[in-house]
């Protein structure tokens, strides 16, 4: 993960602590949780692309393309 990005973010919070400014810890926690949730979405997107790439290299399975059997004549 981007250490410098994390550091910059945490530094802002730390500066508020140093300056004696109030920190809305619940809001900060929510923000981090949302950020993690988005990274999780990106993980799913990467996995989907990997799977699609793998599938594109496999030969087509003809069995899945079979048309349904014709209805019996009455």
């Amino acid at each position: 993960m981007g250490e410098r990005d994390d550091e910059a973010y945490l530094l802002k919070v730390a500066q508020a602590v140093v300056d004696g400014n109030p920190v809305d810890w619940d809001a900060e926690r929510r923000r981090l949780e949302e950020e993690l949730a988005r990274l999780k979405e990106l993980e799913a997107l990467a996995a989907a692309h990997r799977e699609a790439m793998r599938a594109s290299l496999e030969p087509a399975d003809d069995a899945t393309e079979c048309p349904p059997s014709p209805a019996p004549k009455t």
Partner: protein
Amino acid sequence: MASHDSGFDPGQAGALSQESTEALLQRLKSGDQRAQAVLVQRYLPQLRAWAHGRLPRSARDLFNTEDLVQDTFLRALMRLKSFVPETDGSFLAYLRQTLLNRIRDLIRKAGRTPGKEVLQDVYADRNPSPVEAAIGKETLESYDKAMATLSGQDQEAIMLRIEMGFSNEAIAQHLGCPSPNAARMTVARALVRLADAMGVSDGRAGR
């Protein structure tokens, strides 16, 4: 690769296959058609695999993925005069964007063509692409919007690693990073910025 009308001959590619993408693009712009063969050989497989993930399943009944990718690739090469690559990665990003625009355009046009149920399926999102099926339409739209707000290098880093599965070593080559580890960090930082931008585009809080 299937035969096509670009005059591609792998035998021609040999002498130029070690050249950088930038050098090949220069050759192509000055009329050396052998460079086209090498570029096709170098990038077509990745684009084809990428399209497999982004093309709605039912759209594959309408457009042969292979033909669509190949045709888009060759059209993009014909419009090269207006494109100046900063890195090898930016050329692939250019091809990806051209293909993404083409897919969207074809689906939009298909939606206006009456009388074909399969078209209605594509347009009504009843058969989303594999990537959309995995993460959902909203998240994919948010991703695409957020990607467009990033710098060229961030976009390329994410595209190469997340969408096309390049190794860190290959990404280092494409982006001009000094080492695979530097490329890895570049991708990770770009991902953090992308996650942040997705929050902004969704109306969720960014940093």
